[in-house]
C-alpha cells in the first residue's frame, strides 16, 4: 500500500502541494486528475523519490521514502516502473538497450536471457523486431510503448504513468489505455496514472482522485466521480470553460488577441 501523508512542496514560494493526503491500495489502478500545472507530476515524482517534500511523508509498504538515503531509495525504485510523458527514452541507446537498461545495470543475466526478456516485454506492448532502431526513428505512439516496455522489464510491483495519452492521437491514446488495462490484469501490479484526459481516467481507473489547489479535492470510483455534486469536480470532468475553477478568469482575450 502507498500512503501519502500531509505532503507539502513549494517552488520559489509557490505552494504546489499543500497538506496532500492520499491512500493507494495494492493492486488498484488509481488515476490522479487535475488541471495542467496543478502538481500531478510533482506528486508522482515524490512517490518515486525524485523530489523531496518540504514536509510530509510517502510510505511504500510502511517505509518512508522521504527519509531514505540514495542506496535505500534505489532498492525501492527497483520495485517501480515509470512511463514518462514524452517516454524519456535514452537517445544515445537503441530500443534493445533502452528496454534492457535495468537488466544491464542491475543484473548479471546472460545476453540471451536479456534478449528473450526484451522481446517478451516488447511483445507485451505490441511491438516486435525493432530492437536495433534508435528512439528518433520511432513514432510518438511507438516511443510510449517502448517506454512502457522499459518500465515493465524489471518486473516492477508498482507502475507509474505520467500523462500516458498526451502527445498521441486519440486512436493511439485509446490503444495505450487498453494496454495499461491489459498490463494491469496480466502483471497484477499497482498502477498510478496522472492525466487530465477524462476518457482515459474512466477507462483504466479503479479509483479517481482529483488534485486541486495542492490537495485532493475528491476521490472515488469512476461512477462516483461521474455523479459527483461538487461543482469544481463537475466543471473539470465536463471540461466547461465557465465555472468555479475559472471564476474571475476571462478567456475572451484568447479569442480576440
Amino acid at each position, binding site marked *: 500500500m502507498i500512503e501519502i501523508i500531509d505532503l507539502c512542496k513549494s517552488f520559489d514560494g509557490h505552494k504546489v502541494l499543500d497538506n496532500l493526503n492520499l491512500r493507494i491500495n495494492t493492486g488498484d489502478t488509481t488515476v490522479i486528475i487535475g488541471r495542467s500545472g496543478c502538481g500531478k507530476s510533482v506528486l508522482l515524482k515524490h512517490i518515486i523519490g525524485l523530489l523531496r517534500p518540504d514536509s510530509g511523508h510517502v510510505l511504500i509498504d510502511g517505509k518512508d521514502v522521504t527519509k531514505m538515503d540514495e542506496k535505500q531509495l534505489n532498492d525501492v*525504485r527497483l520495485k*517501480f516502473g515509470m512511463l514518462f510523458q514524452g517516454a524519456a527514452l*535514452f537517445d544515445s541507446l537503441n530500443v534493445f538497450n533502452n528496454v534492457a537498461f535495468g537488466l544491464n*545495470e542491475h543484473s548479471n543475466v546472460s545476453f540471451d536471457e536479456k534478449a528473450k526478456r526484451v522481446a517478451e516485454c516488447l511483445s507485451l506492448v505490441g511491438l516486435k523486431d525493432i530492437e536495433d532502431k534508435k528512439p528518433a526513428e520511432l513514432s510518438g505512439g511507438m516511443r510510449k510503448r517502448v517506454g512502457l516496455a522499459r518500465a515493465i522489464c524489471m518486473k516492477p510491483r508498482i507502475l507509474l504513468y505520467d500523462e500516458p495519452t498526451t502527445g498521441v492521437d486519440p486512436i493511439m491514446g485509446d490503444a495505450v489505455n487498453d494496454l495499461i488495462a491489459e498490463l494491469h490484469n496480466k502483471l497484477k501490479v499497482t498502477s498510478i496514472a496522472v492525466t487530465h484526459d477524462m476518457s482515459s481516467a474512466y477507462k483504466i481507473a479503479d479509483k479517481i482522485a482529483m488534485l486541486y489547489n495542492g490537495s485532493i479535492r475528491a476521490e472515488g470510483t469512476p461512477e462516483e466521480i461521474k455523479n459527483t455534486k461538487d461543482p469544481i469536480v463537475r466543471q473539470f470532468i465536463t471540461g466547461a470553460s465557465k465555472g468555479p475553477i475559472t471564476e474571475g478568469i476571462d478567456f475572451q482575450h484568447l479569442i480576440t488577441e
Partner: protein
Amino acid sequence: MKDFIVMLGRRFMNFVKYAGGVSILLGETLFWIPMPPLRRKQVVEQMSKIGVDSLPIVAMISLFTGMVLALQSAYQMQRFAAEMYIAALVAVSMSRELGPVLTALIVAGRVGASITAELGTMKVTEQIDALETLATNPIKYLVVPRFLALIVMLPILTLFADVIGGLGGYIIGTMKLNISHGMYMKNTWEPLKYKDIYTGLIKSFFFGIIICITACYEGMKTEGGAEGVGRSTTASVVVSFILIIASDCFFTALFYFVGKQ
C-alpha cells in the same frame, strides 16, 4: 540606491549558489569515480569523442599559432639580429602557455558545449529523471566517464598542440627565415626544460576539470526546453572560458613564484 544594493545582493547570492552547486558536483563526481561499476567502455567512448575527434582542429589551430608566433617574433627579433632565438620562443611559449590554454579553449568550445547540450536535452526531456527511476545515479552514469576522459585526454591533446605548434614555428623558421634545420632543433631543445612541459600539462589537467564540471553542471540544471538548452550551452562556454583564463593566470603566477624559490 536601495535597488542597486538589492541587485548586488541578488547577484552575490546567485554567485554563491553557482559556486556551491559546482563544488557539490565536483565533490560527488570524485566520490563516484572509485565506485563500481567502472564503465570502462563508456570512458573509452568519451575519450574518443573528446580527444581523438578534437585532434584535427587542435592540430590545425596549433600549427597556425606556431607559424604566427614565429612570424610575429621574427618581426621584432630581426631588429636585433636575434632570429635564432625564435625556435626557443616558440617552443617555450607553446609548451608553457599557448598549448594548454588554446587547447583548453578549443575543447571548451567544441566538447564543453556539446556535453552541456546533450545533458541539457536529457534534463528537459526527463531522461535524467528516467535514469534515477531505473536506480542509476546520473553523476556516475553521465558525469564520471566524461570527467575521466577529459582529465586524461586534455593533457594528451596539449602535448600534441605543443609539438604541432613547434612544427609550425619550424616551417616558418627554416623555410622563410633561413634558419638551418640543425640550428632550429638545437635552439628548440636546449632552452626547453622539463618544467616548461609539465607545468603546461598540470594546467591542462585542471582545465579539463573546469571544462567538464562547468559543462555538466550547466547541462544538469537546464530548464525551459530548447531555449533553456541554448542558454545553458552559451553559459557553459562563457563560464569555462573565463575560468580557464582566470585559473591560467593563477597557475602561471604560482609556478612563477614557486620556481623562483
